[in-house]
């Protein structure tokens, strides 16, 4: 047992055995797991833990957010940029239920976050006691695993198990609910990391036969296409993906969550898939004769109409979660393994090749997309500022080296489309859930996780106001996050759908907004409002030069629409370039 000097006063000797409280044991467990950062919010039931936290100052840094949802998103973003599990604390009842959006968000995007909630004293459970909610029941559909702890001696093993489950296999959030009495009572502390659970087998032996048949198909394909998803980043297989693509010469397309797994400016990169993805990869998915899907799950936003999806292609699916294989798209070769391990084994089996003619088809599409969409979005000569040109300027200014965080809506799609990512794990966005309000707290979590990197959050004027209170967290901890509001005075993405599919009937999508710069000022955050194109570059320079946090309120075109678009129900090859 390792107990540091500072905590010695807390040790009680019972029958010659050292005893500490459950609350202290929890914090010790976190140290054992290499945790140094926690996002959370206190309350009655979790007070013993927060009380103990004071004794861990310097070893465990706690960030008090302004809402539990913010803590959950911050913890998730922290994990996405550091590769370590995020840690989030909340009290019982409303504290726990406020986490639910954040838990579900982490669940759909497979991010390991360990949520610790407090529960009322064990004797009161089931009686509708003050601030009692059945958070185990509530969070069951949106956690990879959850567990209630009612005895202090169960804390170490449960926490060890929680970390193991969260970060292995297909990662995901776990929730441990600890009763107040378990936090207060004492135990003899011993910690052993978990590396095995009988009923849970994250390490699946390599399916060598399947990999070998995949290699044969790859070596004979004429129009192969790689679809890279978030799984590439989660298994840290970026290098292998690059080596595989470069050796085979196969073009790479990425899902939204897979962006930054492959350099955006690589000659083999063809862009983003999906509803607002690039023209080439959407259109040519239906021309490919072989699809190699790596760590992605054929989400409906990626596939469009399934009945008309990739009908000319043989499909190889490399996916760690067996339940994702054959779920939406029936595949020809299933390789139910970790992406990195599969690619390592696969690379020597494939031949060096190039597909110049096939790649030219993508470049032709790129040209069309540039002429019809990108040029006007990124280099408009007159009229209001466009979201695309803001993102493009930021991309050029930071040389693709920044960590980009987005909210949800048009701002998200523009950020994903026009930022050129140079490094892995440099996009933090809410993919599976599309949670408005994610951006600001996620920006905080990302900046706390990577203080060495510029972190820039692109937010919509709508989503910003869903978690705007987190400006307080920035103030309190002086988090030097750069915030850019792409302010169109609308719930833009919904307005776009009203424009296109509901006869332009703008029902409840126009926003009357406050003065965001003045609000930022009240939180001690300097900022500027930009209306004119000619002020934009200087304003961005100023923002990047600022030492601390900064907010830019960029007034953009009110009724801009994101294109290309695969309309709901359409096939990916029916991707539209214009209205």
């Amino acid at each position: 047992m390792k107990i540091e000097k500072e905590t010695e006063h807390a040790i009680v000797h019972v029958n010659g055995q050292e005893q500490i409280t459950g609350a202290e044991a929890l914090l010790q467990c976190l140290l054992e797991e290499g945790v140094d950062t926690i996002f959370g919010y206190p309350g009655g039931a979790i007070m013993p833990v927060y009380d103990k936290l004071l004794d861990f100052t310097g070893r465990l840094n706690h960030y008090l957010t302004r809402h539990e949802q913010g803590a959950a998103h911050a913890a998730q973003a922290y994990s996405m940029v550091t590769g370590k599990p995020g840690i989030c604390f909340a009290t019982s009842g409303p504290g726990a239920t406020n986490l639910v959006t954040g838990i579900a968000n982490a669940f759909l995007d497979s991010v390991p976050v360990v949520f610790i909630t407090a529960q009322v004293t064990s004797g009161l459970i089931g009686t509708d006691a003050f601030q009692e909610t059945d958070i185990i029941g509530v969070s069951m559909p949106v956690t990879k695993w959850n567990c209630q702890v009612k005895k202090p001696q169960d804390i170490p093993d449960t926490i060890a198990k929680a970390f193991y489950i969260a970060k292995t296999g297909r990662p995901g959030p776990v929730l441990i609910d600890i009763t107040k009495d378990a936090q207060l009572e004492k135990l003899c502390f011993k910690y052993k990391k978990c590396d095995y659970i009988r009923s849970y087998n994250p390490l699946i032996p390599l399916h060598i036969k399947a990999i070998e048949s995949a290699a044969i198909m790859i070596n004979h394909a004429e129009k192969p296409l790689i679809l890279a998803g978030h799984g590439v980043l989660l298994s840290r297989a970026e290098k292998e993906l690059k080596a595989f693509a470069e050796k085979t010469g196969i073009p790479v397309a990425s899902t939204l969550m897979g962006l930054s797994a492959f350099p955006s400016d690589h000659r083999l990169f063809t862009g983003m898939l999906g509803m607002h993805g690039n023209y080439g990869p959407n259109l040519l998915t239906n021309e490919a004769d072989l699809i190699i899907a790596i760590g992605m799950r054929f989400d409906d936003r990626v596939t469009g109409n399934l009945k008309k999806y990739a009908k000319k292609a043989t499909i190889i699916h490399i996916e760690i979660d067996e339940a994702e294989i054959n779920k939406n798209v029936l595949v020809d070769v299933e390789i139910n393994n970790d992406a990195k391990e599969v690619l390592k084994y696969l690379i020597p089996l494939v031949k060096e090749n190039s597909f110049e003619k096939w790649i030219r088809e993508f470049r032709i599409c790129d040209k069309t997309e540039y002429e019809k969409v990108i040029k006007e979005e990124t280099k408009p000569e007159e009229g209001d500022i466009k979201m695309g040109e803001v993102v493009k300027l930021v991309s050029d200014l930071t040389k693709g080296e920044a960590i980009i965080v987005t909210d949800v809506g048009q701002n998200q799609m523009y950020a994903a489309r026009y930022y050129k990512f140079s490094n892995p794990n440099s996009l933090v966005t809410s993919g599976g859930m599309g949670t408005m309000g994610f951006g600001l707290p996620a920006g905080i979590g990302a900046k706390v996780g990577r203080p060495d990197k510029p972190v820039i959050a692109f937010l919509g004027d709508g989503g910003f106001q869903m978690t705007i209170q987190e400006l307080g967290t920035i103030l309190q901890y002086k988090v030097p996050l750069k915030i850019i509001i792409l302010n169109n005075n609308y719930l833009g993405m919904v307005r776009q759908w009203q424009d296109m599919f509901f006869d332009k009937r703008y029902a409840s999508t126009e926003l009357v907004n406050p003065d965001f710069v003045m609000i930022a000022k009240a939180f001690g955050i300097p900022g500027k409002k930009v209306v004119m194109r000619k002020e934009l570059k200087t304003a961005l320079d100023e923002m990047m030069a600022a030492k601390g946090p900064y907010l830019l309120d960029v007034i953009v075109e009110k009724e801009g629409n994101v294109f290309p678009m695969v309309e709901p129900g359409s096939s990916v090859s029916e991707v539209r370039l214009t209205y």
Partner: protein
Amino acid sequence: MKQEFTISLFTEDHIGILNQITIILTRRQINVESITASESAVKGVQLLTIVVRTTSEMIQKVARQMEKLVDVLKVFVHTSDQIIYQEIALFKVTTKGLMSGNIIDNIVRNHHARILEVSPEYVVLEKTGHKTEITDLLSQLEPYGVLQFARSGRVAITKQVKELNVYLKEMDEANRVRSETIEITY
């Protein structure tokens, strides 16, 4: 096309596991025809036997989602011809109706039922068999006044030769060996 499947689910004794499984069925709009829970031949391992009607594509998806649950050890899906299964039913019938002539004897003999209790007011019969046999008996008894009827869920034994403990051993070895040699990423 929908057909009947028997899911045999071996799980750890973790509170809430039944809830996790029904969540999966509910999200896919699959009705449970019957469910039984018991201990399995392996100590500490629970066996859930769930009978559902759905398509063979859907049962594959659902089985994989169940197997993915951390506390589920192994999921087997069988069609009725791959298992030996039984259900048990109890019938409470009015004595007056049933005791005239030798009706009761004929029924008991023809249906391989058993008489559990006889009182002046009622007779309790027991029948073990397949659902159709049980419903047959029920319709036979109905004219005599069925006061109560209760049927259990299905219990099933698989015809496959590889038993759970063999799977457990294999899984165990795969993971133990590899967790020694492979640094877990993340």
